[in-house]
């Protein structure tokens, strides 16, 4: 059923093509991708045993703490100390901004979130699942610009106002971490937030995608 020409490489080619194939085979045999020097080896994705301390940083997004609409985007990071198999504590900081407009105002809120955290965690293979509670404050810096104010000749406080306030806040986040290589871990977290603002408890959410490193 099968002809010899169909299964032998180079069997149906001209002499120059055959010579090229021979050179290619020799060149490949002499290349660094030899079996003993492969780019991806058995230890390429080996991970080190996690230590007691872990640092992480990543991109943050969520609802602004004090704006009724919009999505804040920014960066964040934290440090965590694992004490025992299922408990950890640490601190986190993030900064995110959101700009929204109404007919009269263009408002920018910069949310600096500072949290003391405590986690319930469990390891599963290369991964770690955790439920992290954060308590602390969100320092909100507000910048309000009166729309059309510059064209109308407004200046000073008539044109732009700023304010800063620290709002008590709490987060409850689900954390999924996957040790990727060496001491590096990919971390995804997210969950609801609560902020005490204007004498009301205001709900929201936050999420973070980042990497972690442990010494």
């Amino acid at each position: 059923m099968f002809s010899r020409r169909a299964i032998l490489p180079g069997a149906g080619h001209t002499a120059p093509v055959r010579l090229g194939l021979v050179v290619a085979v020799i060149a490949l045999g002499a290349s660094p991708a030899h079996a003993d020097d492969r780019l991806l080896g058995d230890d390429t994705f080996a991970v080190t045993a996690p230590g007691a301390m872990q640092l992480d940083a990543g991109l943050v997004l969520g609802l602004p703490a004090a704006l009724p609409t919009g999505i804040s985007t920014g960066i964040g990071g934290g440090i965590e100390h694992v004490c025992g198999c299922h408990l950890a504590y640490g601190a986190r900081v993030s900064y995110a901004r959101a700009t929204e407009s109404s007919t009269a105002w263009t408002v920018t809120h910069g949310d600096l979130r500072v949290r003391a955290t405590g986690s319930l965690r469990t390891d599963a293979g290369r991964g770690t699942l955790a439920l992290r509670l954060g308590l602390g404050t969100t320092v909100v810096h507000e910048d309000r610009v009166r729309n059309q104010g510059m064209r109308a000749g407004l200046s000073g406080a008539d044109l732009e106002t700023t304010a800063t306030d620290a709002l008590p806040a709490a987060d409850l986040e689900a954390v999924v971490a996957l040790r990727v290589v060496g001491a590096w871990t990919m971390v995804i977290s997210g969950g609801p937030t609560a902020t005490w603002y204007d004498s009301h408890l205001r709900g929201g959410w936050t999420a973070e995608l980042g990497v972690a490193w442990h010494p």
Partner: protein
Amino acid sequence: MASLTTSALLAVAATTCGCSNLQGLGGAVPPLASIQVEVTGDLAAVRPPDDPGTPDLHVALVWGDQWLVEPLCILPPESADAATVIAAGCRDPFGFVPARVDANVAVTIGEPATIDLFALPAADVLVGDLTARVGYGSLVIYDDRDGNGTLTLARPNRPNSTTGGPPMMDPTPTTQPDLVYGASFGSMTAPDVRLAYREGVFVQTAFYPRAGCGDPPPAYSVLAAGGFSASDAIAATLAGMLPQEDPASCTQAAPDASTISIALAPPAGVSEVACTERNADSSVRYREPDTDMPDFTNRVSACVHVPTFGAPSDVIELVVSGRSDDACKGLTHYILKGCRESPDCGTPDWDHSTAPPLWWPC
């Protein structure tokens, strides 16, 4: 641990303070400009005797339209009949023509009132391009007789016609329910106080000119000028110039730095500031004469040569004024042959020159 301590301290401080000063998208909205107005005079002395009810005085900021008078109203009349029609149907060629009513506020005679402006004037009431444009507004005192809280603008009341062009789509009423009792800027030939809004550089144009006075400052300002005479304006125009204001009569101030005083006046003399105009470029819309005579009750008419700023025309037209009891003056033009835009349009849309209607008087 330091961050934990800081976080805790801030949280405690915020909790115990309870004094959030964030406003977000809410809170009071400050006006872009505020204008102080005071109405003076005796209303009883200027009020029409047949005006019923209790006056509900308001002041409105009205942005001015760019308008040019039609030739018949500015050129010397060719006959006594023409002069009568011009007197009955032409508004003040140098008068303030409204484009849009902006803000309204109730006022009491002798007590200052404040008009807060929360939006800039729209681009269509500004004259010029993006790098240099200006708008002028007049503050109009009126009795809000229809109770809608805003000054109602009206338009001239032209005779009904069955063949005189497309149906009238303009929703502006031909009657004026509100009684106008005064305006800070009624005519360029009288002293005026106007609100100006300028963007970019200022270029002196014939849009309510005040040559001889300083340029209005950027953004809002209150400007005053003494006015110029009609003869001076015509002479300056013929010389290709702008009529000059007396510099001694010119003032300018920030909107909130002065109070604009407006004296009450009989409505008959100031009501034109609430009358809009259909065409702003001095062009005329001509009508085809109806077979049956239109209702010219309370109107005056005259047969005149079609007026031009150039060579005299041989075409005779019938001009008809508005009614004597109309709120706004206006003229209606009939020609036997021609188009809506001109009597000399090449291929006329109508031609009754060989068989005019029986009522045609010219």
